[in-house]
């Protein structure tokens, strides 16, 4: 067993909390981008992943991803229900083993949540839930095992500090498949589908940025110089992503946008994720800036190619993730992290090729598996709401709720309530009248 270090543990406790906070942050980021009639259903897609992801991870996911390796492909079920995952540090670690489990759990929650941006505003809630469970078990857990759990990509030596392949490319490919399989929203490519609340999206982006310090710097698993450099390059790349995107906008249309700044920041965050513990500040300037510009150019592709990736998961997380994974193969240096490797710039052709292999394998596996899962669900229970439900909005249709009631009159009446008891004596007589 390892020896617990309180400083490392303190950092990992808060990092885990920070990564948890990212998922509701994503809920707001996505929620602000849809039309107001779908704000809750979109938020729910992320928020309830905190429920779904947790139970799947605790029961089987952690064991599949981090259990004893089988053929380089997957763990086993020996840690089903967290059996044997203890409060003491594992060998070679300085933090409680169960805390490492929790940190990884938060990744398993946000990754599928990212996908939901692709099918916002039209997916059935039950089908969504089934898809998420299946995807976590069949796609996320194996890929996490490959890259971080001792699987073949880890053995190969490709680098992914905090999840460029596992999280972003993986989710974005599933998103692309989902957008294609589920089909376009009614009116896509013709009607304006304005974001209904951009301040909410900005808030979401801010929470993502804030939480991402836990995501990336927490991936050092200790409070040390490596965490510090990961923190710094994360921040710089994010800042440069925002600048890159709005500069590209300024050049193309003359108007930098607030949504562009937020989107560019996320692009920068995504791109630096695989590189965070392997590159220095100057490299992070380049990574963020390039990602910001390329993602800006990429988000328009859906209109050209005709798939409706509603909230640009492919354009931002897919392109950003690939850019980041490739540039990790360019800018990585053992000067920053001895456990890493040198990238192209430092003569490491090897690493560059390994990065391409890791990217390719993730894309291929995620594409095929996501396609099979979605087609199966479509066949069994359908994926989409009815046209009328789509027109009325998913909040009312699926959840019987309204996001906002800002107006001056409500005019509804109480019809019925659910309660533990239906026949209880009323002590209403004892309550005061409406005004004293």
């Amino acid at each position, binding site marked *: 067993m390892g020896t617990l270090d309180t400083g490392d543990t303190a950092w990992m406790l808060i990092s885990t909390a920070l990564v948890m906070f990212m998922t509701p942050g994503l809920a707001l980021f996505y929620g602000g981008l849809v039309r107001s009639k779908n704000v809750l259903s979109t938020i729910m897609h992320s928020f309830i992943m905190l429920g779904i992801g947790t139970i799947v991870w605790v029961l089987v996911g952690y064991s599949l991803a981090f259990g004893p390796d089988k053929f380089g492909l997957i763990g086993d079920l020996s840690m089903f229900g967290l059996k044997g995952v203890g409060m003491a540090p594992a060998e070679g670690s300085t933090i409680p083993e169960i805390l490492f489990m929790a940190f990884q759990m938060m990744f398993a929650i946000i990754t599928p949540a990212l996908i939901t941006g692709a099918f916002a505003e039209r997916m059935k809630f039950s089908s969504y839930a089934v898809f998420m469970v299946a995807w976590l078990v069949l796609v996320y857990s194996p890929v996490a095992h490959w890259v971080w759990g001792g699987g073949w990509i880890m053995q190969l030596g490709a680098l992914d500090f905090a999840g460029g392949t596992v999280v972003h490319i993986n989710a974005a490919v599933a998103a692309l498949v989902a957008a294609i399989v589920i089909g376009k929203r009614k009116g896509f490519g013709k*009607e304006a589908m304005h974001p209904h609340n951009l301040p909410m999206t900005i808030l979401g982006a801010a929470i993502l940025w804030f939480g991402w310090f836990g995501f990336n710097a927490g991936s050092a698993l200790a409070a040390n110089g490596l965490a510090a450099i990961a923190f710094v390059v994360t921040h710089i790349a994010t800042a440069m992503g925002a600048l890159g995107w709005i500069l590209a906008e300024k050049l193309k249309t003359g108007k930098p946008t607030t949504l562009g700044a937020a989107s560019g920041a996320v692009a920068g965050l995504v791109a630096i994720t695989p590189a965070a513990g392997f590159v220095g500040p100057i490299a992070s300037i380049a990574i963020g800036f390039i990602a910001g510009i390329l993602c800006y150019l990429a988000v328009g592709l859906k209109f050209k190619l005709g798939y409706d990736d509603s909230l640009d998961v492919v354009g931002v997380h897919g392109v950003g993730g690939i850019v980041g994974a490739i540039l990790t193969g360019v800018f990585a240096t053992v000067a920053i992290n001895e456990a890493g490797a040198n990238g192209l710039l430092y003569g490491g052709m090897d690493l560059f090729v390994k990065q391409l292999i890791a990217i390719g394998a993730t894309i291929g596996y995620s594409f095929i598996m996501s396609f099979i899962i979605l087609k199966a669900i479509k066949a069994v229970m359908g994926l989409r709401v009815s046209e009328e439900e789509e027109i009325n909005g998913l909040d*009312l249709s699926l959840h*019987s709720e309204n996001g906002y009631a800002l107006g001056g009159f409500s*005019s*509804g009446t*109480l*019809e*019925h*309530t*659910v309660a533990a008891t239906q026949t209880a004596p009323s002590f209403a007589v004892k309550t005061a009248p409406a005004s004293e």
Partner: protein
Amino acid sequence: MKKIEAIIKPFKLDDVKNALSGIGIQGLTVSEVQGFGRQKGHTEVYRGAEYKVDFVPKTKLEILVDDGMVSQVVDTLTEAAKTGKIGDGKIFIYPVDDAIRIRTGERGVDAL
């Protein structure tokens, strides 16, 4: 001059506006309203309490036109706004005494 007022389903606004542009209508005014009618409302549920909401979101269009245009506008509107389901809405026609364009002071049909 007449005022044509239409209460339609909100998602039909684009189609209606385009159809009206198509027959030469150059101006109209739109607002958000809540309708109560044959089309039933919906239920909302918050923490187990079910509320019946009778009002349905509708969009109101107001178009002032010369008398000669009325029937064409009504026909175009009817066609563009129709889905065939309850709640498609109504068109109401009202008399108008006069119209003035603020910018120029023009009056009557010229002001439209």
